[in-house]
């Protein structure tokens, strides 16, 4: 049985913001939230459900030729949208690779980028630093599924398959809160533990993600997402890469390579991107970029295997675009 909480289902966004008092939590799809409540990862006095706010659902054309996705749009809806599949294949593949059919039917794109860490110490009965304790148990403990980049004080990996694609596509995250609406680049939405290990996103008190805006992509832009996992389905990434590249006259112009499963945030690797600019995408340039992508990785005692896996994932993703 879940612990007790009040339940509010506001009809409007402004009411939802008003209801989001300090110990209230947003209920989007609920797939992550209810698990956290059941396991006592955190508590909530009140759940504020967004399910009656129709404006948060659906995929629409945005200004300047982009596409806007409401935060409450399910992963299944995003995965089956032909505009997303044609113009933003990296995102389409990311959401398709996430979770299971049932979870994709329930989980939302807004909730997906607000997931709490899946670290088994954080989810388990350990009073770790992120839960107000004194240390990260993964640093010295069972860390085969933890990060090789950007840990420093807390070594979880960001669980989302959509987020790396959103960063690679230079998407904007729309947010509404007590002081109005704002937009944050997907790249700046996620918070590194070294900056603040008590939260994963820049959302402030009373703020709600209301949607994602995907900018129009220049002609000749291609993208993909490669996810490596232990099972063929329904598993988190051990390593992965979202790649979006604009190719003109056979040469790479703008390129974004963002890693999944290896850092507490979607991890962009500008060094690897620089290797490719002005080059033709070939086995040779892809291998060189993949090597640059893992440069500086700092594996823990049990997860050095991720480095090779990651190099392979980046290489494969790049060659898919060649």
């Amino acid at each position, binding site marked *: 049985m879940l612990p007790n909480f009040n*339940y509010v289902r*506001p*009809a409007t966004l402004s009411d939802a913001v008003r209801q989001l008092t300090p110990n209230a939590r947003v209920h989007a799809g*609920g*797939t992550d939230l209810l698990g956290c409540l059941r396991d006592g990862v955190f508590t909530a006095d009140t759940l504020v*459900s967004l399910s009656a706010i129709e404006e948060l659902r659906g995929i629409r054309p945005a200004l300047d030729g982009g596409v806007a996705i409401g935060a409450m749009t399910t992963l299944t809806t995003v995965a089956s949208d032909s505009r997303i599949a044609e113009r933003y294949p990296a995102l389409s593949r990311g959401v398709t690779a996430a979770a299971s*059919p*049932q979870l994709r039917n329930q989980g939302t794109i807004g909730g997906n980028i607000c997931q709490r860490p899946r670290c088994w110490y954080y989810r388990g009965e350990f009073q770790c630093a992120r839960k107000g304790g004194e240390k990260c148990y993964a640093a010295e403990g069972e860390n085969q599924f933890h990060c090789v980049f950007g840990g420093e004080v807390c070594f979880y990996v960001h669980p989302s398959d959509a987020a790396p694609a959103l960063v690679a596509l230079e998407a904007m995250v729309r947010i509404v809160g007590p002081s109005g609406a704002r937009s944050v680049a997907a790249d700046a939405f996620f918070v590194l533990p070294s900056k603040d290990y008590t939260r994963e996103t820049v959302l402030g008190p009373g703020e709600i993600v209301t949607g994602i805006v995907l900018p129009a992509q220049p002609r000749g832009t291609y993208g993909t997402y490669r996810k490596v996992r232990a099972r063929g389905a*329904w598993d988190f990434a051990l390593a992965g890469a979202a790649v979006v590249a604009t190719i003109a006259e056979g040469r790479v112009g703008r390129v974004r390579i963002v890693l999944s499963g290896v850092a507490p945030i979607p991890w962009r690797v500008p060094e690897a991107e620089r290797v490719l600019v002005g080059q033709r995408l070939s086995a040779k340039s892809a291998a060189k970029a993949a090597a640059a992508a893992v440069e500086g990785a700092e594996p823990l005692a049990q997860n050095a295997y991720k480095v090779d896996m990651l190099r392979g994932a980046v290489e494969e993703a790049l060659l898919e675009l060649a």
Partner: protein
Amino acid sequence: MGGKKDDNERRSSRGVTRRGFFTAVGAGAVGAAAIGRAQAPGEAAIATAGEPAKVALRINGRAYRLLVEPRWTLLFVLRERLGLSGAKAGCERGECGTCTVLIDGVPRYACTTLAVEAEGHEITTLEGLMNGDKLGPVQQAFLEEDALQCGYCTPGQIMAAEGLLRANPRPTLDEIRTGMSGNLCRCGAYTHIFKAVQKASELKKAGGR
């Protein structure tokens, strides 16, 4: 609360069934909060912690009005309040799939869905796939293909298959594998389960509901 018993129980000539008895006992509470009425435009639905609120659910084509605490999952309400025990409790954290039901025709985990969130949606459980006394096509296919050993995951497998076939009536083997990937079978009957889904597709095409 009337209408607690499923069709089989109502047909029972033995008087009070065990399941019927327990659900009737659970139905005594009165004096509810105000969530159950249709949510008026511009108005928030509110339910207080620990207090049963009136909720209207539509399950297998039938309307139920019942008292529900905010923290109760749809799975709990189906099994423990309505006696619809087709959906099974397994992991109770969205990891095994045996609680799968259809919500508005698509498979979801009843264990990670709050009952209050299911209001206003069409819920289909395993019981809802019956054709009167007869098994529905997916159920029949699982029987014919021997697609189970212990059977605990089977209700969820059948509901996942039903959802898959509603969205994609003629799936390829790969599509079946993907579509069924949210349901674990610890006996490892997967090969037979995939065959059963193919069979169910044929039975449905041949005129099964």
